[in-house]
């Protein structure tokens, strides 16, 4: 293999004219993290609501929750990105579509909404599983004490369900973080996109993707560590 290794490339000025290649990758990393966190806020909130709906006694919320999960879970994330970014502005009334297309940072907002709603379907499944893993008597005990359904969820079922599903939710968070890379296809300049442009500008493909790989691993290790701390912080004594 005829390849010129050059680990010093990171400290050379990038053709963008605003800093080095390292700065470029770091800016990508920041977009990756910001996109992942914003998407997670949506995923956690929507996913919890949908997950709860699937455990409610009523048929209507159950059916709605099921429909949501099946829709967002069964369409590939890449296709969903394209649908939100390329198709949605065309099917909306013209003025709305134009507004969407002219929005600054459109790839970022689209990626956050798309990834958030996609991950929400997976979070919903975890939340449902967590609630259903609790003894049936827990709901009865809350109800028998006079708590309303909402209060029973808020004070009894969800605190226990979230504790149970913390490990799989960590996996979902990591997936969510890694899935941000799909957004490069709609023009989000996140870490993978930045590594690719570095490769295209400098031809240092190995250095670029080694750096990207290490950065992904690094932030994911931070997430795993944080999750471990959370688990200890919320551990229930005597269990």
């Amino acid at each position, binding site marked *: 293999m005829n390849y010129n290794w050059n680990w010093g490339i990171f400290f050379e000025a990038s053709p963008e004219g605003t800093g080095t290649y390292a700065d470029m990758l770091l800016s990508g990393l920041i977009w990756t993290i910001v996109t992942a966190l914003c998407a997670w806020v949506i995923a956690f909130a929507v996913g919890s609501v949908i997950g709860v709906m699937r455990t409610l006694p009523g048929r209507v919320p159950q059916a709605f929750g099921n429909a949501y999960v099946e829709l967002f879970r069964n369409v590939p994330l890449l296709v969903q990105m394209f649908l939100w970014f390329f198709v949605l502005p065309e099917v909306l009334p013209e003025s709305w579509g134009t507004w969407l297309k002219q929005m600054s940072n459109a790839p970022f907002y689209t990626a956050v909404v798309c990834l958030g709603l996609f991950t929400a379907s997976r979070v919903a499944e975890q939340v449902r599983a967590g609630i259903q893993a609790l*003894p049936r*008597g*827990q709901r*009865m*005990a*809350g*109800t*028998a*004490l*006079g*708590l*309303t359904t909402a*209060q029973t969820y808020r*004070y*009894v079922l969800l*605190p*226990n369900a979230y*504790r149970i599903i913390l490990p799989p939710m960590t996996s979902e968070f990591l997936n969510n973080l890694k899935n941000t890379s799909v957004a490069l296809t709609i023009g989000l300049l996140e870490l993978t996109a930045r590594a690719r442009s570095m490769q295209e500008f400098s031809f240092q493909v190995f250095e670029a993707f080694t750096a990207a790989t290490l950065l992904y691993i690094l932030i994911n290790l931070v997430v795993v560590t944080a999750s471990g701390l959370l688990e200890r912080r919320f551990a*229930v*004594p*005597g*269990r």
Partner: protein
Amino acid sequence: MTSSAMPPPATAPEPQRPGAGAPPSSPVAAPLAGPAPAAAAGVPMIAIDQVSKWYGDFQVLTNCTTSVVKGEVVVVCGPSGSGKSTLIKCVNALEPFQKGQITVDGTKVVDRRTNLPQLRSRVGMVFQHFELFPHLSITGNLSLAQRKVLGRGREEAEAKGMALLERVGLKAHAHKFPGQLSGGQQQRVAIARALAMNPVVMLFDEPTSALDPEMVGEVLDVMVELAREGMTMMVVTHEMGFARKVANRVIFMDRGEIVEDARKEDFFGSPRSERAQTFLSKILSH
């Protein structure tokens, strides 16, 4: 003389009680007025009237009718699958039923206008598997519903909880979590948690069935004390010793029906139904 003496008794009752507007509306109170001792006052705390329940095509309760008056302790027994737990859960509408009506302290369970959470908050319930909330400390378990349902402040709720913990002999464990207590201790906490809501009646659903034998006594002691203090209680249990000691009446159920509803002395002395006799001979023989 005799012919003129006949009419007055027939018409006499009406002028005698002009104020009592609803004599025919209390069918449950009438038969109890004679025999039941503590029940003589006859205020039905729980009135179960012709309750039937189905799971799909399978009928789990058939025309169950009985009542529990204020201060009375009623033990419900019967073979497993006879519907006794289901019946007791119908009382605070944890289980829905398709036919009949239950009235708790004057409030109808099946009525759109009934505020069920409010009704349930006045009906204490103790479960077979305790069902303490594992993520809350004992204090938290005792305070939660007091604060969220009754709107008591933190200090008031905790003081009330502490007083009840002392009563069940577990004051020293207030800071612990349910997982750190034994089964018997957890069940005593569960009783205290129910009492913290100042219930007008207590329901017990096989409160000692999930306990190790040596822990049954400590829970029964609390229940006996409660009964002696005059709490209205409906207790599903196989503990016939408890029934003998404190029950006023015993209800025997089989296949979703109330087969026997008798004063304790009659039930243990000479149960009328063959099924109750068989049941008793099985559980009392050893």
